[in-house]
């Protein structure tokens, strides 16, 4: 992988007089590696009949650094899952380019781990087989299993699978169960472990906890945050739950449309870095509520209807970023609308 290359390795093939060029090359490689995900001027639209088109996303540009926990927020239909599918390579943008880990995304591959909301596990495989599938498939494709080294590798992967299982708070006795024998929460724990088994530096999660009850959801959010803290992969997490976004993310990106018109796609309405991350109502009280109010106002098109004589959250988070200065919890990278 590019990011793991040392300077001598990179400069080895360059002529001596090209030192400056080598330094520049190293700088470029490092800059590229630091930008885990790069979205450049991406627009997506679909044909509606002969002439009309429906715009889903419009001129989205984002740079996501390695190790960031980015949460994509927005109303249903605002295009956040579409954006995630493009990061995966499942869909292609109508315009613009997307790069993950330094190279352009053109098809689904193993650069990113993926945890969807549903069907996250293969129903015909036990939990253990689900966990082992990635590493084994990666090294031994369909006929590769005939190689003698397969069984040794399988043993090692099996041990790692049990370690991941324990890490996710599951019992060793769950290893032999099929996905339908697990609760929704357990299934998503296994799905996260399955993605982690591949040791990807990028993890894409599409409404991964949306179908769970609040208590299970809470425990999985804590688990995910602790897993992220340990290994710091780049995570892009799609949700429509603002509280979840504030708890999980170190950066919250809100996508919203300016109007209901088909020709008008979603843009980045708010791009906000949380200084600490992990905000909850209990830990941050009123500031948390203010932020939720602000984000929801932005995702609803920036209009607050019940002002009750108070300054709106939008006003407070306006040009002078008053709220940011006051509570010291977050600062806004930019409000593009």
């Amino acid at each position, binding site marked *: 992988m590019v990011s793991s290359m040392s300077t001598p390795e990179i400069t080895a093939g360059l002529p001596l007089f090209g030192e400056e060029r080598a330094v520049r090359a190293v700088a470029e490689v490092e800059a590229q590696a630091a930008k885990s995900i790069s979205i450049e001027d991406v627009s997506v639209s679909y044909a509606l009949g002969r002439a009309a088109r429906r715009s889903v996303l419009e001129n989205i540009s984002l740079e996501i650094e390695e190790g960031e926990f980015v949460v994509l927020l927005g109303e249903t239909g605002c295009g956040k899952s579409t954006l995630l599918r493009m990061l*995966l390579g*499942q869909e292609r943008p109508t315009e613009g380019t997307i790069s993950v880990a330094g190279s352009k995304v053109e*098809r*689904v*591959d*193993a650069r*990113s*781990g*993926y945890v*969807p909301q*549903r*069907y*996250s596990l*293969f*129903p*015909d495989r036990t939990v253990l087989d689900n966990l082992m*599938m*990635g590493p084994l*498939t*990666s090294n031994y*494709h*369909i006929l590769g299993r005939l190689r003698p080294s397969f069984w040794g590798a399988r043993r090692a992967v099996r041990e790692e699978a049990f370690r991941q299982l324990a890490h996710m708070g599951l019992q060793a006795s769950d290893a032999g169960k*099929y*996905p*339908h*024998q697990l609760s929704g929460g357990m299934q998503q724990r296994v799905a996260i472990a*399955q*993605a982690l088994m*591949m040791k*990807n530096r990028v993890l894409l999660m599409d409404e991964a906890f949306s179908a769970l009850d609040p208590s299970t959801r809470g425990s999985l959010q804590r688990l995910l945050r602790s897993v992220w803290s340990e290994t710091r992969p780049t995570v892009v997490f799609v949700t429509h739950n603002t509280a979840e976004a504030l708890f999980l993310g170190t950066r919250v990106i809100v996508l919203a449309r300016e109007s209901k018109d088909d020709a008008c796609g979603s843009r980045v309405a708010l791009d906000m870095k949380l200084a600490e991350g992990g905000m909850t109502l209990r830990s941050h009280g009123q500031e948390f509520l203010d932020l939720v109010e602000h984000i929801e106002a932005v995702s609803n098109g920036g209009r607050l209807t019940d002002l009750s004589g108070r300054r709106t959250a939008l006003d407070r988070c306006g040009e002078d970023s008053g709220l940011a200065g006051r509570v010291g919890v977050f600062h806004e990278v930019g409000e593009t609308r």
Partner: protein
Amino acid sequence: MTNLSPFDIQARPNRLLAQALSAVLFVVCIGLYMQTSIARHRENPEDRVVPSGHQLLAGVRSAVLEPAEEDDYIAPDNASTWERLRHSMIWKDTASSGKRFFISLGLLIPFVVLAVHIGLFPWFGAGFLRFFLFFDKIVALSLLPILFIAFGIDEWSKIALIVIGVAPTMILDVTQMVKAVPQEQIVKAFTLDANNFDVAYRVVFRQVMPQVINSLRLNLKPMMLFLFAGEMIAASDGLAYRIAIMRRHMGMDVILPYVLWVALLLFLIDFSLRTINRRLHPWFQA
């Protein structure tokens, strides 16, 4: 208290009652047959249209223990029951029909694999799907004369008829199953570094396999139907051939046991496939 209303959707008949109800129609059929048989035999003791219990028993005995008329084999007097059974008419016919049936079944496997490709790989879909959609509408029996001309009247024309009759439907069925595999599963497999063939055979094929077996179970009867059509027109042995021959002789005492034997064979094949499915794919029952 058990609700006895037959029009109550929420009724829960107990096990004994349910089993008794399941047996009622069988008993009614047997009763009606017996009554008709007795009535006809009262008028004509030699009646062969609705054979009596004795006549049926004699027919079964001749089918199971005696060679076919066209065979030269004469069992020695001291031949064992097993020896007689091995040279019997029903054994010969079952083996002939079975061979045709199972060769056809084997020939359907490549079509199932093709269907997985059609459902999964866009190039295959573009190339094959419309062709099979059209081909499925051709009445297979109308091709029978062509098959006889092309393959002659021996085994292959009958086998080809079964395959041509069933394969398009199965291909379309399996293609739909493959398309119904959630896209998330396919994307997930690619993110786990699976290549195209891993996805096709180790993700999709494994997941649709129980449904493919179920589809095969549903196609057992059409397969037998095509086999019977072929055998009745041009064959020198086989279950349908025997039924056709016996019809000429009004041999209802053999035809009826043969009909029940074919039904039993199909039931056993279906039962075996269902058991295999349950054993191999315990996750599918959930």
